[in-house]
């Protein structure tokens, strides 16, 4: 239960908390005890990293999946094969209704009526993303995520050259946005967030052709390159919270295995949501295996970068929930 609360609070924007000694299992305490005496052999870590360098197994798979899903919409429309009709906000896969959970929520709040088709679509998508890990929608499907990922690479390159500096915001602001946009939809009767959501804009642009709205997306990308790293996904996008909640209890996880971890922290450098990886800091893990929190997008960057395979994908029901 403590795990769930911590995972949920992190999703909402609270900084990760250090676990009390009582919360750490004896087995984990033992490993922590032994590791305290060990000194990190950087040459060894570097050698392990070099061995793994450049494979990027999960990155390739993820990009391929993201492009495949988005292109399936396009192919389906242009060749009229009715495989995946619509856009990411709502679609029909082989005739089955699908509705993006956040878009559906906005429409329900604004319209205050729920049609059966929309309900079917919402439930279907809920079950789907519950099974494959909630925020995995963000990194495996959302087309803005991919653009943002490239923008992030430019940002990091410029930052390395000391040309830009990441200006962080408080992560809890995303929860504030969530409430604001929900209230706006309910109060005004317009799906206010949908008009500026880069996920919808980019998805529709891919399928139906370019629009002026892409200028807004371009502005967001420039903001992320020059001002604040990954600002939209980290601090604004309510879609992330919606799917994060779906992923709270999802069996699809990146799991942290304490034993072989060198605690050198390279996973946290590549992570879009590094607070979820605070569990990899020396002395933080509460158990020998800890599933990474709900805000994790299951993107697998940490899995790719980890030299000791201490971070890995797992599909299992969480023991932490007991």
């Amino acid at each position, binding site marked *: 239960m403590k795990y769930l609360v911590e995972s949920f609070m992190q999703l909402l924007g609270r900084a990760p908390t250090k676990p009390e000694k009582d919360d750490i299992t004896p087995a984990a305490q033992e490993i922590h005890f032994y590791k305290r005496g060990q000194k990190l052999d950087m040459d060894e870590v570097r050698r392990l990293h070099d061995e793994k360098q450049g494979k990027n197994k999960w990155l390739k798979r993820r990009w391929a999946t993201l492009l495949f899903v988005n292109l399936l919409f396009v192919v389906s429309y242009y060749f009229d094969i009715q495989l995946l009709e619509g*856009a990411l906000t709502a679609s029909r896969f082989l005739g089955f209704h699908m*509705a993006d959970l956040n878009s559906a929520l906005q429409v329900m709040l604004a*319209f205050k009526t729920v049609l059966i088709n*929309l309900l079917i679509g919402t439930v279907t998508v809920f079950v789907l993303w519950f099974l494959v890990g909630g925020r995995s929608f963000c990194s495996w499907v959302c087309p803005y995520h991919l653009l943002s990922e490239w923008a992030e690479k430019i940002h990091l390159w410029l930052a390395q050259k000391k040309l830009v500096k990441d200006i962080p915001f408080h992560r809890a602001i995303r929860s504030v946005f969530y409430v604001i946009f929900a209230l706006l939809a309910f109060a005004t009767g317009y799906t206010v967030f949908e008009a500026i959501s880069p996920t919808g804009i980019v998805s529709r642009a891919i399928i*139906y052709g370019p629009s002026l709205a892409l200028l807004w997306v371009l502005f967001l990308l420039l903001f992320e390159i020059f001002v604040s790293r990954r600002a939209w996904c980290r601090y604004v996008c309510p879609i992330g919270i919606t799917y994060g909640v779906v992923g709270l209890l999802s069996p699809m996880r990146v799991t942290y295995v304490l034993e072989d971890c060198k605690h050198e922290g390279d996973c946290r450098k590549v992570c879009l949501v590094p607070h979820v990886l605070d569990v990899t800091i020396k002395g933080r893990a509460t158990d020998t295996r800890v599933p990474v929190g709900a805000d994790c997008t299951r993107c697998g960057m940490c899995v790719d970068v980890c030299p000791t395979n201490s971070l890995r994908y797992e599909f299992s029901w969480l023991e932490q929930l007991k």
Partner: protein
Amino acid sequence: MTDDKSKEKPVKKPRVLDRKTQEARRRFLRSLGLAAGVVSASLVGFIPVVRGYNPRLRPPGALAEDEFLASCIKCGQCIQVCPVEAIKLTDIMDGFGNGTPHIDARAQACDFSCDGLQCVLACPTGSLSHDTNYPHQVRIGFAELARPDLCLAMQGKGFKGRIRDASFKGLFRYAELNRWQPLPVRGQEFDREICDLCIVHCPIEIRRNQCEAGHPPADDPNQCPPSRAIGLEPVEGGGMRPVIYEGCVGCGACEMVCPVTPAAIVVDMTKNADTVTA
């Protein structure tokens, strides 16, 4: 010595905040700024909606504009099923309407060539109301002879040749030529003694004629429109006037095929058959 100094200065709370607190405060204020920025950016979308900068013809079955904007999930499934590609997406200049579907009747009107109102069936949220079953129940707008002096029929003139200029790509289902495939309007040669193109292209009139000939569309008598939509009536002093009747659904076929530029007949989106007859 150090002891002396500490005695001289009484212990005081430091007025200067430590760096961590300062940074936290700055971050908090910045975050408020971000919130203000993004929320105001999103609210800019109100302006075109409230001001009605871009009045739009919506696809068949669309709810009243406010409800339509509230319910449309902006997926474009209606666009994908339309056989004549009459439905297009609006852009960010429409504010909250960004990503919603509309019809530009002059470029491509809805000619109901799908018969079954595919866009309505495709709509997942009921923005295009599922209560709409037949073309004659549609209320997109109401046609109006906006420029009577341009109308060829009003001048007693006929029409010979092809409609619109060579760049015109509009499609229409000429059922007697091809039941399944809409054809380019531009590809048809016309020779009318008095120009009645708006009448011969009216989907409601076409349906009524089919019903009167004993062959209702899809052999379904329910498809028969209960009232006429448009007809020519003689004008005092010569010429004929296209008159709009209560059967008009505002599909815009007349506007699309009107051979003069600008079109003499257009769809008025502020009216529909119900408001006109009420």
